[in-house]
């Protein structure tokens, strides 16, 4: 068989997603106008599920494809499962909003599929160019999604803002790629690793390249100091889009960051990027916690919360050890469930006049008017705050365990103190829901699909979810080991 066919077979999820998104575009165009959105959305979910199934018979160990531009290993497979699941949830959770808002066009699931394709490529990228292609493929549909509600000025503003800043970040990243290519002679990660470990002296050019790449990727994961777009975009973009942004792309970008740093820059040079990561992690944790205290808009609050969470996740990446990467993957998994759950609750609620909830004051007395949703949101908030026995505590535990095992005790201390500050604003939402008297009774959307997803996420984040720790950590450990060839 021609090598190209072998490669296509290895890149199963990407193949399915490529063909599927094209088919979905056709399906949407040729469906009856009223049904196009629903049909396309369900088709997109089916495609995402099918892409997930192709991961099942993936060969064990690391398999290269496309002349080493692409790898399929346990690491990429694990992240792809998360990305596909989060994307499928994002498609489903948007349906009520799309039907209601009048922005319900079938391109929504198609764009999501394309973005997902870009993300799967990101986590399988073994070459700086594949990385860039994946990143851009994920980013471009995202800009459109942010501006999806085109009648809404804020949505258009969010789209534009995201695009301008995103393009700038992509440019910075690409410049970093050229620097690294210039000073190492290759764009392929393992070849760069060979060159880097052969060097006796520190190469300033290479270091600059790393800094630029880190800056570009920090933008994508919305880590401080490249986080400024996040609150604005989350606030302006339609809520289902913000939910999507907060979940799958973060998982993909963190996975990408981990692979680039661990595979391409091991050994002595690791100490250099560790310093940068320590700074980024501390800044994100602290700023995410402190800035959120003053927020009144629930979406901005969740945006700062995601900034802080990225900081915690980066703590897992900082040591660059298998235990750290495993903790990072565990963190991402739980984070995706927590953040999707929180956004789902926000999406599920309506003001009496049918408009979506925006401010935190809207939640006053929710425990009386909507006890089930309030309980679910309380679970997500306590989980975000990292209070045991909720599941959200254990990813923090895992990343700090990895950090302390590598001697990064000060980092762990600062992180835990930041988590106490963060607990303050998570508690504030609980206080508003449980201690305050109801202002206006909120109605629910009553979509059973979204209700079921909330229940699933809440159950996972509740203490019962602790039973998932053992299998999950076993999987993340296996995935992390794939980055460290024996």
């Amino acid at each position: 068989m021609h090598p190209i066919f072998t490669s296509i077979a290895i890149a199963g999820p990407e193949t399915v997603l490529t063909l599927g998104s094209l088919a979905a575009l056709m399906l949407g165009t040729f469906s009856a106008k009223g049904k196009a959105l629903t049909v396309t959305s369900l088709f997109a979910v089916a495609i995402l599920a099918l892409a997930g199934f192709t991961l099942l018979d993936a060969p064990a160990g690391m398999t290269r494809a496309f002349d080493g531009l692409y790898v399929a290993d346990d690491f990429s497979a694990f992240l792809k499962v998360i990305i596909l699941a989060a994307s499928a949830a994002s498609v489903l959770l948007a349906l009520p909003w799309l039907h209601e808002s009048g922005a319900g066009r079938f391109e929504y699931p198609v764009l999501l599929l394309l973005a997902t394709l870009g993300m799967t490529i990101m986590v399988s990228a073994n070459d700086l160019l594949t990385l860039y292609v994946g990143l851009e493929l994920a980013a471009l549909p995202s800009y459109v999604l942010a501006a999806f509600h085109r009648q809404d000025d804020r949505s258009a503003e969010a789209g534009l803002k995201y695009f301008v800043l995103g393009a700038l970040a992509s440019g910075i990243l690409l410049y970093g790629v050229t620097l690294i290519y210039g000073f190492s002679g290759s764009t392929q990660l393992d070849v760069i690793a060979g060159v880097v470990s052969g060097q006796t002296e520190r190469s300033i050019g290479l270091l600059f390249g790393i800094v630029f790449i880190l800056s570009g990727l920090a933008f994508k994961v919305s880590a401080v100091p490249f986080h400024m777009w996040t609150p604005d975009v989350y606030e302006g973009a339609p809520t289902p889009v913000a939910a999507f942004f907060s979940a799958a792309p973060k998982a993909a970008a963190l996975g990408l960051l981990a692979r680039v740093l661990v595979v391409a820059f091991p050994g002595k040079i690791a100490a250099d990027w560790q310093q940068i990561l320590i700074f980024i992690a501390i800044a994100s944790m602290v700023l995410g916690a402190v800035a959120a205290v003053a927020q009144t808009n629930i979406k901005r609050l969740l945006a700062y919360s995601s900034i802080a969470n990225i900081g915690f996740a980066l703590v897992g990446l900082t040591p660059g050890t298998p235990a750290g990467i495993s903790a990072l993957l565990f963190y991402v998994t739980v984070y995706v469930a927590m953040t999707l759950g929180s956004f789902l609750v926000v999406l599920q609620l309506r003001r009496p006049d049918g408009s979506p909830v925006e401010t935190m004051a809207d939640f006053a007395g929710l425990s009386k008017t909507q006890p089930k949703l309030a309980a679910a949101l309380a679970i997500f908030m306590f989980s975000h705050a990292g209070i045991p026995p909720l599941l959200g505590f254990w990813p923090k535990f895992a990343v700090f365990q990895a950090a302390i095992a590598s001697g990064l005790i000060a980092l762990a201390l600062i992180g835990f103190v930041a988590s106490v500050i963060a607990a303050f604003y998570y508690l504030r939402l609980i206080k508003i829901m449980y201690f305050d008297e109801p202002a206006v009774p909120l109605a629910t959307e009553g979509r059973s699909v979204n209700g079921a997803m909330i229940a699933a996420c809440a159950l996972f984040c509740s203490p019962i979810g602790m039973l998932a720790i053992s299998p999950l950590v076993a999987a993340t450990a296996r995935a992390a080991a794939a980055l460290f060839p024996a």
Partner: protein
Amino acid sequence: MILSFMILLPVVAALVVATLPGADAERAGRARVVALATTLVEFALGIWLWTQFDQTTAAFQFTENLPLFAPFLNWSLGIDGIALMLIELSVFLMPLCILASWVAVKKRVPEYMAAFLLMESLMIGTFAARDMFLFYLFFEGGLIPMFLIIGIWGGARRIYASYKFFLYTLLGSVLMLVAMLWMVNFAGSADIGVLSRTDFPKEAQFWLFLAFFASFAVKMPMWPVHTWLPDAHVEAPTAGSVILAGVLLKLGGYGFIRFSLPMFPDASAQLIWLVFGLSMVAVVYTSLVALVQQDMKKLIAYSSVAHMAFVTGGLFALNTQGIEGAMVMMLSHGLVSGALFLCVGVIYDRLHTREIGRYGGLADTMPKYALVLLFFTMASVGLPATSGFVAEFLVLLGMYQTSTWATFVLTTGIILGAAYMLWLYARVAYGKAAGDDTRAMPDLSPREIAILVPIILATLWMGIYPKSFQAPMKPAIAEVVARLEGRELATVPTDMTLSPALPAIAAPAHAAESHH
């Protein structure tokens, strides 16, 4: 399996209570019955546990070990005498708390009962955990129901108090968590038994001790991080105060004896000046503050801080009498201050104020109540034949061997304690009623008598025959003391020129060792 059952039963009951069907009034009634039945079953199981407990060994008993949450933590349970007695205290107070809230709590009754049942499960779990992270899980998990109890059912400044309680204790605890992670990384095991026998490097012990101290001192609470306690107490509902004073404050002392003393013996010996210093300030300062309080609950809250200073003083005497005294003090304080909060609750339910000036002459209008209050006032002061006397006597006996100065200061605390408690009693029970509404208050109802009498009996039992409570703890305490033996003590002023030789009643074997 008994421990797992005791931990899980209240959780299941809480879920049942929270999801009961029916109209509000109906749900409330059912929730009360289910909660009371569950706590009574727990109490019966607790008694059974006591009868089955082997008092001759320091080893953990009723052990279970399931690697449910590997690799992070194991479901590893087991109790020694110290844990047993604190579990007994928890299961004893719990049904009384439910009864005390029977009519006083009117809003959201099912949720209230569910929160208390969760509390019970978390408290038992904290004392029964044999895996350090499992301990942390239960230890921290208790914040959530307590936050909700204060915040939803509390008084006027409940929100401020709930935040303060939560964030104060959380900040202390995360420092401890960092230390725990380091220790497990060092020792390669999270088993408390193993860690208690691990010799950590002396310099590391210093920092580890301080990290654990940050958490336990806040929970205890010790001066100067005690300020959350009066706020939390004043705003919490009566039963919340009882649990807070009765059991949650014991977590700090339990932490010291389970972690700080056996795991960091060198640091403990080196830092007794710190603990003694804070305890001395606490006793005098909080007693003086208690003297000027206008709010009954605040007064008792400050007296709790003073009593807890006796616990820390006794623990860091680092000898058998001191530690045993501290343990008895914790049990005694759990009963007595819990009962005092219940007594305040009784008149608060009638007049809806805790201001001391609004009462008076209760000895005439509520004779039964006045009698009960007098009993617990005396127990708090430490009258012989009550549990308070045994505790204070043992603590002072133990401390005297380590530092006569600290003993001297703590003894003045007893005098001050008598002053504020007796003055409180005089203002509430004697004199003239402050108003017609005060005069019209009915005496104790049969339900209230049923709540208070068991505590009176337990207090007397502990005061007259403390051996039943001390015997199960002796082997475990001996083990802790053995870990501490021969550690280099910090130089504290151990002698006053006037100090006579050690009285002969002190057990001579241990008396000699702790002198340097």
